[in-house]
């Protein structure tokens, strides 16, 4: 089983590395967006109650979540391509354990996502962001990032297994992007003056993922933010894994 998981994970990593766009954009685009947003929104740090005097520190949480969204798309699209091109059918003729397929795919997503996360951290440190939770905080941040990657990767896999279409998986991207933008991505929730937006951001699980990551960077150890961040990530991951497992079962029966 371990060998099977490793084989699938390695294949996922290698095929990602062979597509320069799949490596470059998940790293470069979130960082470019962070730079542009932080440049333009720096005056927000002068608002009374803004939690830090560096918008870069505030914004550094966003690439972690946005990078996870890209990882979701890549994993889902790759799996959909496997289904479309018949590789998935051929795989079913082998003694491969179905769980190994899912775990291997998610393993590949996590490996690539963690490389991205380390790059985001490195860029953050290079531009002078202070990491208030210290070295142990980095470990906790990577643990949270891993949980988020598994959850989002499972969402991508679910879409791929249900639809068997790369285009359908790509179509999910704008919806996930909406979740990212209608969150506390650019402003703390208590500083959002528009009621409906603040309510939407409060109901949006992405806000808690962002705030969990952000708390480690700008606050230090904030038990509530971390509990909510890990709690929401665990709930999303559990629900997504259940959905992915069911979809895998259905897909295997269908083929």
């Amino acid at each position, binding site marked *: 089983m371990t060998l099977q998981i490793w084989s699938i994970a390695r294949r996922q990593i290698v095929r990602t590395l062979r597509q320069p766009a799949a490596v470059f954009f998940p790293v470069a685009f979130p960082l*470019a967006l962070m730079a*542009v*947003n932080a*440049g*333009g*929104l*720096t*005056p*927000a740090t*002068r*608002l009374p109650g803004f939690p830090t005097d560096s918008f870069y520190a505030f914004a550094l949480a966003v690439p972690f979540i946005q990078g996870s969204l890209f990882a979701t798309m890549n994993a889902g699209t790759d799996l959909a391509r496997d289904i479309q091109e018949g590789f998935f059918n051929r795989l079913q003729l082998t003694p491969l354990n179905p769980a190994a397929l899912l775990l291997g795919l998610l393993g590949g997503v996590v490996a690539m996502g963690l490389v991205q996360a380390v790059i985001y951290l490195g860029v953050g440190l290079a531009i002078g962001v202070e990491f208030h939770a210290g070295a142990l905080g980095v470990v906790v941040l990577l643990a949270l990032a891993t949980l988020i990657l598994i959850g989002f990767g499972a969402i991508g896999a679910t879409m791929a297994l249900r639809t068997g279409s790369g285009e359908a998986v790509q179509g999910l991207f*704008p919806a996930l992007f*909406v979740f990212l*933008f*209608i969150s506390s*991505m*650019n*402003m703390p929730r208590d*500083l*959002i*003056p*528009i009621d*409906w*937006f603040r309510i939407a*951001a409060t109901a949006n699980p992405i806000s808690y993922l962002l705030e969990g990551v952000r708390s480690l960077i700008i606050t230090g150890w904030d038990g509530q933010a971390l509990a909510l961040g890990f709690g929401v990530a665990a709930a999303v991951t559990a629900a997504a894994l259940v959905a992915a497992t069911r979809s895998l079962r259905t897909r295997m029966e269908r083929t």
Partner: protein
Amino acid sequence: MTRTLAVAEGVAWRVLRNVFKNPSLLVPSLVFPLFFFTAFAGGLAGISRAPGFDFPDGYTAFQFVFVLLQSAAFSGVFTGFGIARDFERGFAKRLLIAAPRRGGILLGYALAAIVRWALVAVLLTVVALAAGMEVGGNGVDLFGLYALALLVNVAGILWATGVAMRLRTMQAGPVMQFPVFITLFLAPVYVPLSLLTGWIKALATVNPATRFLEAGRSLLAGAPHEVALAFGAALGLGLLFALWALRGLRSAERAGAA
């Protein structure tokens, strides 16, 4: 001239029919500007309380101008995707052979992009007014704002057409899109230019999109400022990209529209 117009009419009609018959082409160009408007005007309204933020008509109006100009530029880019698709499917080759005046092809695509953006502009304006946007400008000021956005729309379509006619593949999408995206976001999107600092202020100061935004916002507020400069920059870009598009057309002709 008559034959050019006939070609333009045929091309524009076909593009618009395709767009309006195909929700996957129409919906994103309508929804994305509304989404950006919602996310920016709603989520970032708090920044209007930052010291030195002096736009008189509120943050909704401040962001409306950005999203209006962004939608204008991107309607052009979306039409460029359609041109690339026409080349990939071989339709453009037949079009080049059949058209007695090939300049009419460019004109047709541009007309289609204008009509397409006009729909977005109407929808965005209605939503913004429904959301309580304050308008300080009079009719002439607003005419100026939409005229400026129209020039940005034309510049966008000519830029994307030039790329599409040179590369002739859908994979050219990021080449059409990314420079427009970056140019727009390296302008004072969230706060006035005077509140920007550091590297982004240096870039925003020389960015032509800054002139469009600042002039557009001043027109909406009813206090026109550097409008002639913005129109000059938009016309200059339009002329430059018209040459770019025409040379792209020649490039496609030389390549036999393969």
